[in-house]
């Protein structure tokens, strides 16, 4: 008797060999052999996986992203060919730009039909190549062991990212003798570049000579699991550190050297100080335009040290004085060993008046308003206080994201899922579903606006079926608020298609059997939040938000970051 198995079953074994336990997916014609195999591997004695049936393939990829972000493992999505495959692409692009490790396995027509415009055929590898870390078509069953292992190795190693496997149907049904492979080397791919000690020395020399050093901390620190190394580095040289949006969990919010969030809607002091520091130490961040504002004027006075695992980030956007290419788990301690203990308390103290200005002018009015309709800032603050920093924050994109990331607290690692680079509306709800599976012991709070809530609203079906305990905070202002804010500030208040007629969310919640409460009055907010958190399972808390609530401070698009505004008009006072 032959010990050959079908390619579809070989995929099950290959996924098991990679330690996969959770799969987000949606079946269809070209992936049916795999779903037939999943039938056996998701129940009974053979049970190896939990399969979460999403309601749209975009949801599968975002859920895989949310899962990966909070667990540190590779998220997996399985979908069919054609539209199933193209529906995943937004999530693939999102994972690429935010360095999130996911593997998408899509069915494909049999190789005999490739190129014939067969039913549900699309050139997935062709369209995925520019937006994925690696894409590969599995044409025969004997490729499965190698391709799957290589996919996971590439997705999780070095700077993580999405990998797309296009799995031809004939390869799913062919018989193969399966032997798991363990790819841990790819000749053309150097995920962990060797640290150059001369650069480490130059970086240390610059830091030792700095009077006004400033660190910019990105997600690379969290991806490299180097939070402790970061703290040791910062504390030894007494360097204040701003975090990018994706790097918010790389340094605990309450650490005394944390000086807030970078970027267009980040904190006031750190934005201005980027234009004053003498040495800028960028660690695992990529100088996104949302951080730098106008590049021509960005930090021109500063010498720039850039630590990153991806050498193509060096000099990509900002000219670097000293590149330190390598894993920050290794490079940070190497630099720390060479720097002197320093005291920059005077420099750090110079942030305080600006912080105070922002606190008085922006933060207090946003989180502790006393009159008028509810504001997003106070809703986020109420949830942040009630969850005491234990919760995972998931956001959608827009004002909800900016308020949530500004006013949430991040004492714990891997506590944030947000679409930073791509800015994908509709990301929040499915990513939150993924987060509940990636961190089942943690509370998952997902802030969404009325726009983004409706962009992947179908995933309420997944939440219902799985009873995924997502605490959904719907901040409803009947507007596409972020675009509305730009129209108000920069487009002569011409509100072109940003006002939205909304459905009755209570009826929608009822339809899915999800507990719901609405808050319109701030005196009921705290109790409503407590009730949401005390309720087991999913929950929708709809907050009626002031229509013209603006996210501030703000650097106008294309402007220098020192032009950051504390109010809607341009006065900087």
């Amino acid at each position, binding site marked *: 008797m032959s010990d050959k198995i079908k390619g579809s079953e070989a995929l099950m074994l290959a996924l098991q060999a990679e330690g996969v336990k959770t799969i987000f997916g949606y079946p269809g014609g070209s992936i049916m052999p795999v779903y037939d195999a999943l039938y056996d591997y998701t129940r009974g004695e053979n049970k190896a996986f939990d399969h979460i049936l999403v309601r749209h393939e975009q949801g599968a990829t975002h859920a895989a992203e949310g899962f990966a972000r909070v667990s540190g493992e590779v998220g997996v999505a399985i979908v069919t060919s054609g539209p199933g495959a193209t529906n995943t692409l937004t999530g693939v692009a999102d994972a690429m730009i935010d360095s999130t490790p996911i593997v998408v396995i899509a069915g494909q027509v049999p190789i005999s039909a490739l190129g014939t415009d067969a039913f549900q055929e699309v050139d997935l590898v062709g369209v995925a190549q520019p937006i994925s870390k690696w894409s590969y078509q599995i044409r025969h069953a004997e490729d499965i062991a190698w391709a799957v292992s290589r996919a996971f190795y590439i997705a999780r190693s070095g700077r993580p990212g999405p990998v797309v496997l296009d799995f031809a149907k004939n390869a799913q049904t062919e018989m193969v003798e399966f032997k798991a492979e363990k790819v841990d080397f790819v*000749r053309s791919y150097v995920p962990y570049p060797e640290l150059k000690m001369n650069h480490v020395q130059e970086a240390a020399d610059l830091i030792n000579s700095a009077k006004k050093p400033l660190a910019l901390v990105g997600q690379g620190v969290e991806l490299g699991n180097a939070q402790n190394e970061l703290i040791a580095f910062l504390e030894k040289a007494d360097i204040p550190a701003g975090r990018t949006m994706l790097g918010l969990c790389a340094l605990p919010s309450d650490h005394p050297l944390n000086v807030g969030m970078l970027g267009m809607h980040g904190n006031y002091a750190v934005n201005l100080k980027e234009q004053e520091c003498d040495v800028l130490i960028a660690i695992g961040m990529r100088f996104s335009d949302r951080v730098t504002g106008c590049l021509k004027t960005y930090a021109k006075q500063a010498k720039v040290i850039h630590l990153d695992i991806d050498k193509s980030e060096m000099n990509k956007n900002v000219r670097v004085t000293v590149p330190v290419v390598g894993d920050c788990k290794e490079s940070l301690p190497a630099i720390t060993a060479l720097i002197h203990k320093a005291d920059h308390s005077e420099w750090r103290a110079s942030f305080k008046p600006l912080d105070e200005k922002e606190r008085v002018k922006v933060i207090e009015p946003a989180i502790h308003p006393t009159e008028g309709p509810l504001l997003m800032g106070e809703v986020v603050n109420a949830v942040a206080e009630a969850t005491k920093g234990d919760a995972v924050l998931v956001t959608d994109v827009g004002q909800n994201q900016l308020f949530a990331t500004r006013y949430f607290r991040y004492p714990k690692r891997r506590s944030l899922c947000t679409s930073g680079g791509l800015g994908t509306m509709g990301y929040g709800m499915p990513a939150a579903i993924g987060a509940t599976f990636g961190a089942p012991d943690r509370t998952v709070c997902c802030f969404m606006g009325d726009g983004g809530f409706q962009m992947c609203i179908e995933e309420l079906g997944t939440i219902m079926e799985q009873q995924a305990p997502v605490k959904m905070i719907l901040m409803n202002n009947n507007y596409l608020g972020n675009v509305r804010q730009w129209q108000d500030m920069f487009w002569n208040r011409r509100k072109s298609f940003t006002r939205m007629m909304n459905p009755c969310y209570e009826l929608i919640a009822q339809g899915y059997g999800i507990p719901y409460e609405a808050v319109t009055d701030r005196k009921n907010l705290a109790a409503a939040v407590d009730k949401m958190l005390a309720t087991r399972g999913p929950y929708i808390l709809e907050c009626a938000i002031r229509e013209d609530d603006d996210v501030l401070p703000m650097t106008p698009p294309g402007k220098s970051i020192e032009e950051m505004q504390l109010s809607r008009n341009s006065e900087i006072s």
Partner: protein
Amino acid sequence: MSNNTTSRQPLPSLTGGNEGGSAESLYTILVFSENLAGILNQVTAVFTRRQVNIESLNVCASSTPGVHKYTITCYCTEEMAKVLKAQIEKRIDVLQARYYTDDEIFLQETSLLKISAPAVMENPEVCRIVRRHGARIVEVNPTYAAVEKTGTTEDILSLYEALNSLGVVRQFARSGRICITRGTREELDEYLVEREKEKRTK
């Protein structure tokens, strides 16, 4: 091509500054990749995304078994050449990318011209031009003569323009540049040896 006279918009400087590296010149980018499907697409997509036109492109197997070599020329700033190199090398199946100016490489291009045969018979100037340019007639029949010229882009275009001014050229084909480096180091070999060592220590 080096005599390209099309007016070019200066490319936006990546770092927003004017600190050197902003003058455009012709760069030859050599890329070595594994022999897997779809890599050419990935390499050319980097140029498209960075709004750099590819002037010539030649792809074939390299002297190393299983390794493909791409010879690409483009006009850009050195700063951009560095970015192109980095972004191409970032693709998983690309082994190495390097950029060179013309003084760092031996380069050659080949071309074929199809010349109307009666014109060759009637006009002795045609043969004189072919000889003067060091080109060869590789085939003659009653309809046409095939001329082959190998040299620099300038040599080839000079021949083409001379013959074309007589109105005798029916077809003209150029191979695109190929080159070998002048340096003493064989960087691809060094890389492969280094990687092989690393593989063994795994």
